[in-house]
Structures are given as structure tokens and as C-alpha cells.
């Protein structure tokens, strides 16, 4: 049955019904504030039930307060139908084959001007219509395997993705691009690093910080960079490709295990922590920053490890944390806990008995640092030594989120304490590094003359 009153509820719905005015109807509304004319638009479900949305002739939307309505009349009706135009994605002999896998983030989209809803563009034809430059970079195929928001991505999705990518590699693809919401992009990149090892081709995760319906979106440029890195780049690893500076200048390729979203809204939000990014990427090519990386290979060999134990948690320590936080995890059957401790990797004394109890119950506990930069050093203070004695294992300079993903992945394969420790502390791809370079920690503060001079000179 057709819904004539999309999104309207309660009193506004009653008003529309009373005067026989439908959504998409052209309405003339007499109110105590004067007359209004326009097309009735659907209303967002979360908005109140005392207003009717109208698109007036000049293209603007306004709301009419139903308590001011004297009369209302439908004088016309025109339902809008939308379709994204498709242009056939051209095939160019000699360009690499790239597969774009969709998980639900909108990489390219078109706005429905009448409702404001975003219609995602995803088929190669649609993408070509929105970002025609892609056709000069690669021969693109696409497949949408989930339709979830970034925050709803989880272990099951990671596993499906890993297996899917494994098949694509066997089938001869030259590069993989994964479109993904940005909130948990770095969780997925870590998971895929562990689940897909020894890949002969680049696997590039990409998102956008500004939706592609706006002219200043970073989506198109990110997609151009990602397809370039996937199709032409020499770095055959799981990577995140996002803006380097906030300017439309170049992208970074970040190693999937050392990267983190660091700002809630900046375009340049993804930063490599405790190291330099792998490379920069522009339309002209990939320029490696790091000298050591896994090179692209011609063979089709790849190892897929689609495992994950879901009973793993991450505990962000705060002063005065009570032991029942740990106890409740143990009582609920959690098998692994990653603690993001203060400073060099500390928690307070009242937690000790709870930790001991957890350890005795066979829970695997790893320590990371909430400072994000730097290593866990549990020998420096007594506290650290006490904690290690109680069974906590320091996880070097592994990022807390990465440690969480890795512990889930490890416990999906074994629960032997020695094996868990060995797997956790043996890096798959730099989730722990033997050394931290000096330029791996660069958070300059504004106000310092040298820094301000630099910021003025170099595009942010």
C-alpha cells in the first residue's frame, strides 16, 4: 500500500488527513500567519508532530505550525521519482582491474533535491557519472556486500570480507578498494591485516569525512587516490587511504595496524601513530615514505585467517575505577581483556584482586597505553611490576583498538596462554614495532612562533 503521509505522525498526520492533503501534493495553506503555497514534503521521523514541511516555489523548505492552520487545500499532485543516471563505465585495455567492495558507507551519492535524502551511487556506471576520472585509472567492478553504518561493522563482517577478498585475489584482481564509513575504519583495517596475510595486491580501505553530496566533499579525491593505490601502487598491504592535509592536495596510505581516527570531523583525521605513514598518493602516483613494505607480486597466493572470538573487551582505565568492572566482565564469560592504562601502563591498587581473580579464571589480559603514543613499560614502577606478577602482559606499543581486534582474532584460534602470548607479541604487520622513530610523534602546539610560521607556510 502506498504511504501518502511519509514520516507524519500524531497531530500533523491528523491535520493532513483532515484536509485531504498528501505528501507530494501542492498545497495552499491559510494560516493565522498568512498564506503559504508549496509542495508537501515527507517529514523526518525524528522531528515533532506539530509541523508540516513545505517546499516553496523558490526551492527553500519551510515548516508550517499546524496550530496556525485555518484551512488547507490540495491543488495538485506530483510524486517525485528518482534514479541515478548510469553511464557505462568504459573499459580500457591495459588498465588494472580493481574491485570496489561496498560495506554501506556512501562513497559517491546524489542528493534528492526534493527530500534531501542521499541516494548512494555505487554501481560502476553511477560512480563513473559522479567521478569520471576513475575511468582513466582502472577498469572498475563493484560489489556491495553489506549495507551497514561504520559503527555497526563487527567480527562477522570482517570474516566475510576476508574470505571475499581472498576469492577475488585468487581470481586475479589487481587491487581491492573497500568503501567504508570512517568511524571504525581503523578497526576494520586492523582486522583485515590479521585475517588476510601475505596478499600479493594492495587492499585499500577508504571513506569520506564530508558526504559526497557536497561540492567540497573529500569523497571523490579519496576514491581517486584509493583506486590509484590499489591499481597501480606497489604496496601490497592492508591500508587506509584518506586525506593527508585537510586541503585537497594529497592522500596518505596508512598501515592498517598503526592508524587511528584522531578528530571527529577533520578531513585529515586519520593519522599513523608512533610511525610515519607508508606513502603519499596523488593522481600522479604513490610515493613511498617508508622504505620497507610488502611489494606487489604476480602470484595469487594469499593466507586467509577468518577467526574471531567475540568475548573480548577493552577497558579504558580511569582514576577510582572499581574492581567490579573487571569482575563483571569475568562473570559474563569474557575470555580476553585489553586495558588501556595510564602513563606507562598502570591501574590503581584496588583493581589488583579483581585482576588476580580474572587471571586465575583463565582470562587473557593485555596492557596498552591510553596515551596512544609510546610503549608500555611495566618495569619502571612498582605498580607495573605488581601488575605483571598478577598476569597482565604488556602489549608493547600496540594501539588499544588494535590490541582489542588482535586479541579477538588470536582467541578465535587458540586459548593456550603461551600461544596467545606468542601470537599477540609477534607482529603481523607492525602492530608492534621494535623502535619508535623520532618523527613518529609530531603533535606541535600552536602559538609557538616556529610552529605558526610553519603552519602559515605549509598547507594544512
Amino acid at each position: 500500500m502506498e504511504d501518502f503521509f511519509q514520516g507524519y505522525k500524531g497531530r500533523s498526520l491528523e491535520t493532513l488527513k483532515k484536509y485531504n492533503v498528501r505528501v507530494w501534493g501542492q498545497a495552499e495553506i491559510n494560516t493565522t500567519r498568512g498564506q503559504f503555497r508549496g509542495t508537501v514534503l515527507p517529514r523526518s521521523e525524528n522531528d515533532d508532530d506539530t509541523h508540516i514541511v513545505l517546499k516553496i516555489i523558490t526551492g527553500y523548505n519551510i515548516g508550517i505550525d499546524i496550530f496556525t492552520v485555518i484551512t488547507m487545500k490540495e491543488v495538485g499532485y506530483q510524486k517525485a521519482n528518482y534514479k541515478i543516471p548510469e553511464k557505462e563505465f568504459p573499459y580500457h585495455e591495459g588498465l588494472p582491474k580493481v574491485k570496489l567492495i561496498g560495506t554501506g558507507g556512501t562513497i559517491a551519492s546524489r542528493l534528492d533535491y526534493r527530500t534531501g535524502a542521499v541516494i548512494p551511487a555505487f554501481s560502476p556506471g553511477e560512480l563513473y557519472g559522479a567521478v569520471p576520472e576513475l575511468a582513466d585509472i582502472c577498469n572498475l567492478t563493484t560489489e556491495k556486500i553489506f549495507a551497514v553504518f561504520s559503527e555497526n561493522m563487527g567480527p562477522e563482517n570482517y570474516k566475510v570480507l576476508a574470505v571475499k577478498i581472498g576469492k577475488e585475489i585468487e581470481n586475479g584482481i589487481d587491487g581491492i578498494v573497500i568503501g567504508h564509513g570512517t568511524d571504525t575504519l581503523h578497526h576494520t583495517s586492523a582486522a583485515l591485516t590479521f585475517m588476510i596475510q601475505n596478499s600479493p595486491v594492495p587492499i585499500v580501505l577508504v571513506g569520506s569525512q564530508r558526504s559526497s553530496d557536497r561540492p567540497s566533499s573529500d569523497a571523490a579525491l579519496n576514491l581517486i587516490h584509493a583506486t590509484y593505490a590499489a591499481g597501480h601502487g606497489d604496496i601490497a598491504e592492508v591500508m587506509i587511504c584518506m586525506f593527508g592535509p585537510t586541503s585537497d592536495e594529497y592522500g596518505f596510505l596508512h598501515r592498517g595496524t598503526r592508524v587511528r581516527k584522531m578528530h571527529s570531523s577533520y578531513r585529515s583525521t586519520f593519522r599513523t601513530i608512533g610511525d610515519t605513514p607508508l606513502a603519499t598518493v596523488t593522481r600522479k602516483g604513490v610515493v613511498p615514505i617508508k622504505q620497507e613494505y610488502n611489494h606487489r607480486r604476480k602470484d595469487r597466493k594469499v593466507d586467509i585467517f577468518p577467526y574471531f572470538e567475540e568475548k573480548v573487551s577493552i577497558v579504558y582505565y580511569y582514576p577510582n575505577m572499581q574492581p567490579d568492572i573487571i569482575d563483571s566482565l569475568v562473570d559474563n564469560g569474557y575470555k580476553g581483556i585489553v586495558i588501556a592504562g595510564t602513563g606507562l601502563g598502570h591501574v590503581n591498587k584496588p583493581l589488583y584482586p579483581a585482576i588476580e581473580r580474572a587471571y586465575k579464571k583463565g582470562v587473557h589480559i593485555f596492557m596498552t597505553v591510553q596515551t596512544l603514543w609510546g610503549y608500555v613499560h611495566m618495569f619502571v614502577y612498582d605498580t607495573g611490576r605488581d601488575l605483571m606478577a598478577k598476569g597482565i602482559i604488556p602489549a608493547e606499543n600496540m594501539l588499544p583498538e588494535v590490541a582489542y581486534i588482535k586479541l579477538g582474532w588470536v582467541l578465535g584460534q587458540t586459548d593456550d596462554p603461551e600461544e596467545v602470548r606468542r601470537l599477540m607479541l609477534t607482529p603481523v604487520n607492525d602492530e608492534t614495532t621494535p623502535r619508535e622513530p623520532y618523527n613518529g610523534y609530531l603533535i606541535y602546539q600552536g602559538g609557538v612562533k616556529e610552529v605558526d610560521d610553519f603552519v602559515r607556510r605549509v598547507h594544512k
Partner: protein
Amino acid sequence: MKRKFDPLQNYKRTMKAIGYVPRKQATEADYKRIGFMSGLEVHQQLKTKEKLFCRCPAGIYHQHDDYNAEIIRHMRPTLSELGEYDGTALMEFKTRKEIQYRINNKTACTYEVDDTPPFRIDPEALEIALEISILSKLNIVGEVHITRKQYLDGSIPTGFQRTAILGVDGEIQLKNKPVRLLQLSIEEDSCREISDIGHVRIYKTDRLGMPLIETVTYADMFTPDELAEAAQYIRFLNRSSGKVRTGIGSGREDVNVSCRGGQRVEIKGVAHNKWIPELSHNEAFRQWALLHIRKILNDKIGDGKTWKPEQIQLDYDVFSITFEPLKLARDKGYKLVAINLPGFRGILSHFTQPGKTFADELSDRLKVIACIEKPNMIHTEQFKSILTRADLDIIAPLLHAQEEDAQVVFWGPAEDIPTAIETIEERCRIAFVDVPRETRKSFINGTTVFERVLPGPDRMYPDTDSAPIPLRDDYINKLRNNLPIDVSERFHQLKKWEVPEDTYHYILKKNLVPYIEKITGELGFSPRFVGTFFGHTLKNIEGKMKPHPDFSYDKIYGLFKFIRKKKLVEDISRIMLPMVYEYPSMEFESVLTVLKFKKRSMDDLLAPIEFLHEKFKEIKISDGDEVTINWLMGQVHKQAAGNVSLAELRQNIEKIIK
């Protein structure tokens, strides 16, 4: 044998053919003849502490070079409703501009450069805008919906402006007719352009995001004077709220003009209302001229569907180059292209605006769309020819040019040449069909240049980053009950007070009626005197002296209060004002001291009259009571000012000498 063709004569002839008259000589009949029609979009900044969608301070401006960081963006068109790119969008994309934004930490945060979503709309701005909406007799909406309006020129880093309608269908009353208002919106102001050269456009972000209202009229104005009157009225109305910004750039007009059979063309950002008549006059005639060109082309060539220009790349060596820009182009390694426009003889030099011809339409677009800086072309119909007969003899055969054709030679970087050729061809093709819908940039001399293609209606969509804002009846009624008096009522008020009419403009522009009311109401001076004091005395001083930053109209209230308290006569205010204006912090008592003012009674003043009268008899060079009295008044009026009324003094002197 080639016919002689004089471009300047052709320009004059075509100007006459379309019946162009300078504005000073134009009558209502002229505007009726060409079907002059126009409407306004009046922009007015609001006087708020903060910007509209972030917490940056509003109203602080910087020099071009005063910035802390620079960021770069490229604007991409997004698909419109029908899957087509908007005309403007396509043009802006063609231009492939790199947009640089200069950011100063004092006036811009991460919101301005689109790295943070909007904060809640500034309630102060919303309230001022609503007050003005009510004053404009608009129907106030029940709920405010923030809308995004696309701009791809880079003037807003997001690529769109956040804007919202507050009211629709209002009315203002001009002297002779009412004018309908289409709508009033609240919106964020855009960046200020620093430069736009080649493929790089630079903006600064200080003004970006400041709250602004836009009042849009229907196209109800049928002469340039009506248009100016409407603009003036809306400006006064906005200012009557007392809560809008004044000064350079705080009020700007977009003027929409068409002639009969023409198209809506928008003259952007006119900063002074006094420029409006000349600009709109010339624009209507420009369109009238373009329609004439269309007729010539249609008669000569037909509908132009098969019309095709031919072009070739030239070698610089072909010419004996003396034209300086061409030398520079050669040195820069630019490509040189000649293009033949079949049947266009007499078109390139066809009048369009005073001092401008159709060739300028091509040159303007080369600059904007192909990003080739001016001078960017020469052609066969320049008033002072640069292409010599010898040059043409070489070029014409290469282009298979006929006598009825015109030729353009232009130059630019190799990568811009295809766009440039396309641009010239496109503009010429439009000439067969229509007046192009454009936004145009204005100049003080009353002419305009092409700025961009006028955007279509499909560039509006809801802002998914912000929630609708309900406007309840009790809130609107509260605002309604606290409104300033309507501007047209202000007119009546001034008339009733018998304030001289030549002061109205100044008094309304500065929104001084509330001060007049306060001074007359609280202190008992006559409104006629106070009105004249503002409109003549103060205005006169303002024209001569720079204002001291501490001077405000409250000082004038203080001055009158002082005069009342000291029981002085009001005339002293005129003598004191220059001092008060120049040294507003000086005490009024000290002002009197500096002016050597002494308290004197009428008797004191009249005491020396007899003596002076005798003296005058000795030195006088002409006779008559009037002359005598004037001379005597001249001797004592300075001492009298502030102590007694001068009229009374005169009467007393008359009595003494008769």
C-alpha cells in the same frame, strides 16, 4: 574590392539603431519601450556578537596578508535532480580553479573551512532577522528549515551556503506604489575575494559565516528610479531595527534586470544604492542590444544551427608584433589561435554598453571560463585596430574567411585553448537564440562584466547537519509587540514635525528618529529644531571632520540635556557641536570655556547697543535700518548665543534704534 568598414561608426550606428539613450535623458516612455523590469535582493549584515553557525566573533576584518594558515579546495559539481549538472556547476568545473582560503585564528575556526559541522544557529541573529521579517509584513513560517544553497565559485568552502526562509509574501510601500516582497531569508555571509588570476582564486575567511539577511522583492519595479527607491526603503527599514551593521560592505544589493524578450540577469553585490539606476539602465539596454544582434544574425544567417567557426593555430612569426601583450604571450610560450566567425562582421563592434561591444562579451568569458587573463584577444573590429591589413591578408585565407566574417585572435596556455575555443563558439551560438542568463559584476562607471552563468533552481537541498527550529506563536507575538515604528510612518512623523524634507534621507539612513523622539520627549525641545540639528548641522560637520571613535549619538542627547540643565538657549548647541564632535570626552562645561562663553542677560547684551549704533553711523557705507540692525546683530550675536533667543535680541535692538 573590399568594402571599407569602420567599427567606431558601426558602434555608434548600432547604438542609435536600438534607441539607446543615456540615463539622464531617459524618460518613463523609454523604459516602457524596452520593457524594463527589475527586482532586488537586498543583503544586510546583522549586528551580532558572533557568527551564524559557529562561535567566532563577527565583524572583525583583516588585511589580505594577515593570516595564520592557508588551505586549498577544489569544488566538484554534484548531480542535480535530473541527473544533469547545473549550468553554473559545469562552468565552474570547466574553469578548474584551485581555491585558496586564508585563515586567521582570531576570526575563523574549523567550521568556516568545513572541518566541523555547524553549531546551533545564533539566537541573537535569528531574533533580529525575525524582527525585520515582521517589519516587512511577511508571513512568518512556523518552523525554520536550514537549507543548503550550492555555490561552486569557492566563495564558501563547503560549496554551499546555509540559509533559511523566515517569511514569505510581504510588502513595502513606496511613494507611489506598493512593492511585493517574495521572501526574507537568514544566511551566512561568504568569503571576501583577494584575487582571481588564471587558475587560482584566493579568498579570506574573516567575513565568512557572518549573519546576513536577504530581502527579495518581486520584479515590480519598472524604472531605475523605482528600483533605487525600493532599495533605499528596504535599507532604511533594516536600519530602523537599530540592530544591523552599517558601513562599507554591510549592505549589498543584487539587482535583477531584464528587458522585454530578455532574460533575468543578476548584477551582483552592488555596494551603493546610488549606483543602482545607472547599472540597471545599462543592463536593460545591453539586453535590448543583444536582442538586436539576434535579429541581425537571424536575418543574415538563420537560426545558427549549422553555424560553425573555423580556427587555426598561428605562428607568432607570421606577424610583425608590436602589440605588447602579444609579445608577452610569445615569451610565455602561449599558444596563438585565430578563429573565424562566419557572418559576424558588424557584430563584434555592435554596441552593448557605453564604451563596450559584443567583442567584450567574448573577452569577458575567456577570462572567467577559460581563465585567460585580459587582454586575451584582438579582433577585426577594434576601434583602434591592432591587426593590420597585412596581418589579415595572411590570416584570412588560412581561415577561408569571407568578407562578411569577423576574426578573433587570442592566446593562452596550451591546456586552456580547447576551453577557450569552446567558450567563444558557445557565446556566439547563444547570440542567435537568446540573452544568456548570467550574473554580472558591476563597475562604478555603470557597466558590468560577465561573472558566471546564472545558477538554476535545482541547487537547494536541506541541511542534514541541523534540525528544524520551531517558531511558536507566543514568541512571534512577543517580538511583534516590541517593534520599532514602520519606515513609512517615520516619513509621516517627520512631516508632521515640520522637519525640512532635505534631512529625511540622512535621518532615516542613520535611524535618528528614536533620538529625536528621546530629546524632544524627555527634554522638551522642538522636534523641528532637533531634526534640523541632526539633518543639517551634524551632517555638515560629518562632511568636514573625521569622527572621533568615542563620538556617539548619545553625546548629542547629553549635550541637549546639559543645555536644558544650564537653562541655555538651544542655539548654543550649534556652536558647541563641532567641539563635542571632535573631542567627545571633553566635559560640556569645558567646551563652553573654550568657546569663551559667558552668562549674559538681555540687558547685558543690549547695554552697548546705543554706543555701537553711534559708531556705525561713522563707518557705514550704506543706509537703511536693515543694514544697521544686521551690523549690530553681528557685533553681539556671539555673546548672545545660548543666553537669549536671537530673534528676541533682534526685536529688542529694533526697538532701541527706532
